[in-house]
């Protein structure tokens, strides 16, 4: 049963990585840039939700919505101020700018909210049979298999987002515009697509998803500090590359595999070395499939 438990918690962690990885992969697909500030948008989303719920006593759902709205605006602002002027610059210049934005967000959070860890409230529980005791999960097979509500909600949210996003990119006009821009910006512009607003929309969606990921992440691992987002950010970026950067199903696959591998490494190999195992698997996968699991291999023309 412990094996099944590990699989489920791995999928749950992987779902969070997948949601974050979506932000990376969409932005990479369309703007061809590594948005290193993405991990810190997660942190901002978690803080907004934390303050909305703990300090202003808003209902959790309103807190999450508020976080999504603020992160969406934040993402669009960052894109407009920092990345848009660099559209024609080298990718390295954009990368350094993204790192600058990341530093900025972390240090602004440090000033605004201090480095004292905040304990994120748990949303997903119900009153138990005994009114003083809250139940935060379901037990199956006589208590051998315990699934917390956070896990269930995380996996469900991830699936909903995946389906919605796939439908959005394949059916709607905006989604098609997005795909067109990621194929060829100049051709898309000739077809009457507003490339700037499409890129802005991509950042908006990615950042909104980051807010959701932030809330889910902090519900599962409730310590919230200004650097909360950096390591999950790096891992999710790894997940995006793992699955093939630029591909939406790839982000899902990469995220979930990465989560499962991480939990398995923690359980069966070593807690301290789990990160090393995760990265080692990534390296092996990239050597066998240099464009990631579901990435398209682009042949160079001479």
């Amino acid at each position: 049963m412990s094996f099944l438990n590990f699989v489920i918690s791995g999928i749950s962690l992987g779902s969070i990585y997948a949601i974050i990885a979506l932000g990376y992969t969409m932005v990479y697909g369309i703007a061809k840039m590594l948005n290193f500030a993405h991990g810190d948008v997660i942190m901002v989303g978690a803080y907004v939700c934390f303050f909305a719920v703990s300090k202003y006593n808003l209902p959790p759902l309103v807190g999450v919505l508020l976080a999504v709205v603020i992160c969406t605006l934040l993402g669009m602002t960052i894109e407009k101020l920092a990345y848009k002027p660099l559209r024609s610059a080298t990718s390295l210049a954009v990368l350094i700018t993204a790192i600058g934005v990341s530093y900025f967000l972390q240090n602004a959070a440090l000033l605004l909210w201090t480095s004292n860890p905040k304990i994120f409230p748990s949303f997903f529980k119900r009153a138990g049979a005994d009114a003083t005791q809250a139940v935060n999960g379901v037990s199956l097979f006589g208590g051998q298999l315990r699934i917390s509500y956070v896990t269930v909600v995380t996996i469900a949210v991830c699936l909903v987002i995946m389906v919605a996003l796939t439908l959005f990119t394949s059916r709607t006009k905006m989604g098609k515009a997005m795909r067109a821009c990621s194929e060829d910006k100049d051709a898309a512009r000739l077809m009457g697509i507003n490339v700037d607003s499409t890129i802005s929309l991509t950042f908006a969606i990615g950042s909104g998803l980051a807010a959701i990921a932030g809330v889910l992440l902090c519900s599962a691992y409730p310590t919230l500090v200004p650097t909360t987002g950096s390591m999950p950010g790096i891992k999710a970026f790894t997940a995006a590359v793992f699955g093939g950067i630029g591909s939406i199903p790839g982000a899902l696959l990469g995220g979930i595999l990465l989560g499962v591998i991480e939990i398995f490494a923690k359980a069966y190999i070593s807690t301290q070395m789990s990160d090393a195992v995760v990265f080692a698997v990534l390296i092996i996968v990239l050597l066998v499939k240099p464009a990631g699991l579901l990435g398209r291999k682009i042949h160079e023309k001479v």
Partner: protein
Amino acid sequence: MKKLWKNKTTRKSFVTYAFVVLAYVILQSIAAGGGMKSSLKGMLVPICAYVVMAISLNLVVGISGELSLGHAGFMSVGAFTGVTAAIALQNAIPNAPLRLVVAMVVGAVFAGIVGFLIGIPVLRLKGDYLAIVTLAFGEIIKSIFNNLYVGMDGKGLHISLLEDKTHLMEDGRLIIAGPMGIGGIQKIATFTAGFILILVCLFVIFNLVNSRSGRAIMAIRDNRIAAESVGISVTKYKMMAFVISAAMAGAAGTLFALNYSTVVANKFDFNTSILVLVFVVFGGLGNMLGSIIAAAVLTVLPEALRGFATYRMLIYAIVLVLVMLATNSPRLKALLARLVPGRKEEGTDG
């Protein structure tokens, strides 16, 4: 001599050497005269270490054209192996400067070997995939040193991973203690040693860049397929740049670690790699003098901003973004090109 001076690359390297020597003489005389604040004095060796990190990374990113996000990993390898050597040889080599040199050589050799081993898989990849794999190796190296235990006793070195299984004899000493890192280091690193290391690295880089191999490396950077088609072995020359860069970073790591009494693996994380990359991009790709100045200024800047206390890192971040925006703005570039004719052709090569 006059002919030499006309050669642009030679001139450029002489200017760089002159700058480094001048900076050393000025700083050393200020320090000797007692006119230097102790906080700045303590930063002289780290500045040297970061300068070496920056020029060595510039060899990979600027000259060889591969984005590496794990350069701190090599620094880490150099720091841990070099300091271990320094401690192990404490009795064998009582002369501190000589021990420092031996330690730096050990650090450089080990980092070079690790660089070679990492280079085999890494250099098969391209672009962002290569970047993410170097990032992954940096994290793996950090994880390993966080869980490595190395002890020394009469029978020699004992190494174990994950938990302390070294079983030392009574006179033994645990050198690397997992997440606690190395403690009780004798601070034998000096500013002069750092200065010499910088000169040696510059000498190696300039000679490499102006050699047949260096031109091959740059040809691969500019057009891999064209270079391949004239018979340049891509793997060989990329590996050459990568290993030399790793070895230099290793020596820098040893120098850096021997300036402090303790060193832990978490010091050399992703953020350190990024910090060094920022130096390189700020100074200009392929421009060694730029890297040196950027590394020195950006190491001192957070210290100089200490008056602003809590806001200093925020200011640092804003400065970083603004400089990137300013230097990449097409309008500003056009203006500069008009003001300084001929600037463009000088700025494009190393």
